[in-house]
């Protein structure tokens, strides 16, 4: 019968653990990633998820010719380097932070509005047999009106 008493406790524990994880991811995005936007205004959107090393995430977004943008891609310290690439509709790579020493931010503006794709990849520590590292990865956008 003790088991009956244990179930609600375990359920509560699980709910608490999940909320803590989520709160941590949001707090990480807020404290670490948004400040990287500097003088750009954060658009208010939230794109963050727990990713495991080797895992990829994709983001689709329209960018406007009237704006200047900064994208900030951050991963928790326990993760290996985060790679991100920006591609056009024909899958041409327009930018890769691999060529910029895995920079966390990229500033850009467009001559005409375009839908672009951002591919974010958590690199691998390459340690076979070990549990892959996992942690929060956040993608944040800041903008300002083009001068």
């Amino acid at each position, binding site marked *: 019968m003790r088991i009956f008493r244990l179930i609600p406790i*375990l359920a509560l524990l699980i709910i608490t653990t999940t909320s*803590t994880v989520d709160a941590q991811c949001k707090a990480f995005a807020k404290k670490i990633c948004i400040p990287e936007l500097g003088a750009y205004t954060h658009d*208010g959107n939230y794109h963050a998820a*727990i990713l495991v090393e080797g895992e990829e*995430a994709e983001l*689709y977004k329209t960018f406007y010719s009237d704006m200047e943008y900064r994208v900030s891609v951050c991963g928790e310290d*326990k993760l290996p380097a985060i790679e991100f690439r920006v591609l056009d509709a024909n899958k041409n790579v327009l930018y890769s932070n691999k060529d910029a020493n895995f920079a966390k931010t990229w*500033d850009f*503006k467009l001559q005409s509005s375009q839908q672009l794709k951002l591919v974010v990849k958590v690199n691998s520590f390459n340690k076979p047999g*070990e549990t892959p590292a996992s942690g929060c990865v956040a993608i944040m956008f800041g903008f300002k009106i083009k001068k």
Partner: protein
Amino acid sequence: MTKKFGICSKILVVFLFSSLLFGCKSGSTKAPKETVTVSVPKDNTAVVEDIKQAEKIFNALPSPLESAMLIKSAGARFDEVLLNPVGNVNSYVTNKSMALNLGIYTCDLSFASLYEQTQLIIDYMNAAKKMADGLGILKAIEQSQIDKLEENINNSEVIMEIVSETFMNSNSYLSDNGQPAIAAMVLVGGWFEGLYISTQLVDMKEFNGNKLVGRIIDQKLSIDILINLLESSKGNPAVDDLIVQVRKLKVVFDKIKITTSKIRPEFDKTSNTTVLKSEIKTDMTPEVFKELSITVSDIRKTFVNN
């Protein structure tokens, strides 16, 4: 008794297993390491392959703040009549109407903020708070933020920061608490409001070469993102209804042709910025614009007149 115990044990195992999974997912520093490292096979290639396939996709619509900024940057005037009256707040009682109108009121709030409409800023922040509270979004908009807003009512930079922060509080809460359908509806509401205000502000006498018309055409680029965003919550009746409405809008957007040249990235050393150079050709007749405007207005009516 034995049977009961058996079922209970199974439930317990499921709970324990779930707990273990959450621990693995979180990588929480509070959880002891032993709990997350058990039962991992020596050769975890297959596990990693599975993880790789579980790709995360974000369909990012322009936020209400960005939509409002686009309207302002196009040189449009402010018109309070176009906003959803704050007096409507009490008529939104379903999750769908509260989610859509959280997006709508946040867009109206952003619009009012950018045009320094001090009283409206407070009113629309309160309306957005009411929607967020109704959806059970904890700490989305706190009284301290409204107080800060009032104290800095003439400081547009601080106001935009607060609007951005409160909106992120809402959508992060919904995303992180397994409510992607509600999160999507908030974004859809905000996007429609931006499009509605834009279409209403176009002066047909100055249709050709109108910058705002250009920004409206640009929204065609987001229509598939919008559909994908909603389809990721397909099966939710409220979302399914929205998909039908958005598909109607897509039929009109499909009448607009956009052709773009190859994008050429050029790095500008002075500003440390990459310029994505490309030429774009679009065509939208006044007739198609009118059809678009009516379609947007009709759909928006279903959102605000509940």
